[in-house]
């Protein structure tokens, strides 16, 4: 059996999709893609495709859930039934419930929630195609949707995962590597605040590998952050200058 298993990393450190160990996948963010939301974003992250819509701040419904000193932030992470190899029931699984919670907790530190008491900010995330690191892609795209909604924020939240595959640490884990790998460690980070807002890990790594992973994660988040800024530039620069050029 062991011999038949295809290797995911070649001897010269190239991964099965041609990436180096510390190389992220092609990431393309788009802002303002939906019409009925206050803010929206779409991301293609390798083969992972996710759409995020933000509603709010708006009056909390039901009213008794409103918080008297800040906005209530909710995230709804859902995977489309056709987003994975086998059909998935559209009803939210325990995984989706937990991910919704940690995604919300990754984004909330960025939002000036205290400016909008008694309101709700709802973040709806629909994974159209899943190929690993969907929570990282969701968080990164959601922070752009929040920007698009004009919600005051401390910083953008950038997110990425490090995995351990065939004994090596690899940046930006795709599905194949996640399934075959020994560990998966996603992080969300606000670079200008030096703030880690999400950190999870499953699998097994040594203490030294953990320390190296933190470094790699920081580097990866900064690369995602740069792409987010480029997307903002592209979207809003267009809105300002399109007429003068015409």
């Amino acid at each position, binding site marked *: 059996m062991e011999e038949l298993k295809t290797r995911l990393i070649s001897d010269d450190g190239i991964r099965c999709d041609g990436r180096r160990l510390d190389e992220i996948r092609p990431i393309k963010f788009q802002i303002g893609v939906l019409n009925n939301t206050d803010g929206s974003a779409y991301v293609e992250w390798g083969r992972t495709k996710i759409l995020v819509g933000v509603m709010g701040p708006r009056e909390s419904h039901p009213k008794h859930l409103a918080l008297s000193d800040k906005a209530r932030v909710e995230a709804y992470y859902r995977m489309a039934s056709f987003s994975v190899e086998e059909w998935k029931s559209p009803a939210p699984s325990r995984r989706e419930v*937990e991910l*919704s919670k940690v995604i919300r907790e990754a984004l909330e530190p960025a939002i000036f929630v205290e400016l909008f008491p008694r309101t709700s900010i709802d973040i709806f995330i629909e994974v159209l195609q899943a190929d690993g690191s969907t929570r990282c892609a969701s968080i990164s795209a959601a922070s752009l949707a929040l920007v698009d909604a004009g919600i005051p924020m401390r910083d953008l939240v950038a997110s990425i995962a490090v995995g351990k595959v065939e004994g090596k640490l690899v940046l930006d884990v795709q599905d194949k590597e996640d399934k075959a790998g020994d560990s998966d460690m996603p992080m969300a980070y606000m670079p200008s605040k*030096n*703030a880690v807002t999400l950190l999870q*890990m*499953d699998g097994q790594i040594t*203490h030294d590998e953990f320390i190296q992973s*933190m470094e790699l994660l920081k580097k990866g988040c900064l690369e995602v952050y740069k792409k987010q800024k480029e997307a903002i530039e592209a979207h809003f620069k267009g809105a300002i200058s399109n007429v003068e050029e015409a």
Partner: protein
Amino acid sequence: MSQRIVPTVKKRQIIELADSGKRMDGRTLTDYREIKIQTGIVDKAEGSAMVSIGGTKVVAGVKFEIGDPFPDIPNEGVMQVGAEFVPFASPDFEPGKPDEVAVELARVVDRGLRESKILETSKLCLIPGKKVWIVHVDVYILDHCGNLIDTAALAALSAMLTATMPEAAVEGENIRLTGNRLPMPITGIPINVTLAKIGNRLFVDPSLEEEEVLDCRFSVAFKENGMLCAIQKGESGYFTPEEILRAVEIAKDKSQEIRKKVVELLKLNDGAVGGS
């Protein structure tokens, strides 16, 4: 859950007390509250444990059931961890479907046990591809005085370590229970350690009043060989990367201390740590 309003003076008090290395209940920042473990308290369960850390009390039970394997791992048994919040455990708990807090708790406990690979699921296969043992590990939160994650993880672990499995005789497609008990195919003692960040300090094993004012929490599970096997950051604050590195250092030490205690306590109870 309803909105909890905490007086701001309390947070100030906790932070200022921590400046001199103390906590409201007299502990230092790295002390755990007293840990108690009682195993074998439910006869009808294959394994059970009542664990308390300070005033927090969690009971865990292990039940075996014959069921279908997952299609991608047809020859392996299945472990399922569930968490139930009993309404009398806290005025904040509401009866009904498990909310996201319960789901997160169950999944964090599950990850600590699963990723440490203490259970040899290949030994839980009855008819390859058709029938396997499903091991249900359910934790019930009875009294919530802070740090549910560590208490629940310890309860689940203690119940698993002291459980026995039913012996089954397989003849063709028939499975017959012999009535004998076999040791659990289990090895290892993964320990979960949780720290809270309040202000810019880290508090090991947060109490309920500390949890009410915390910025965020960090849980990490260690295996006996020093490997990390699960991490979860929780709540809506943030850590700096430096704080996280420090939290892991502290947790590593604490995990060894607690593991020693578990070995000691479980031996005291029935002399058995794990199966074979």
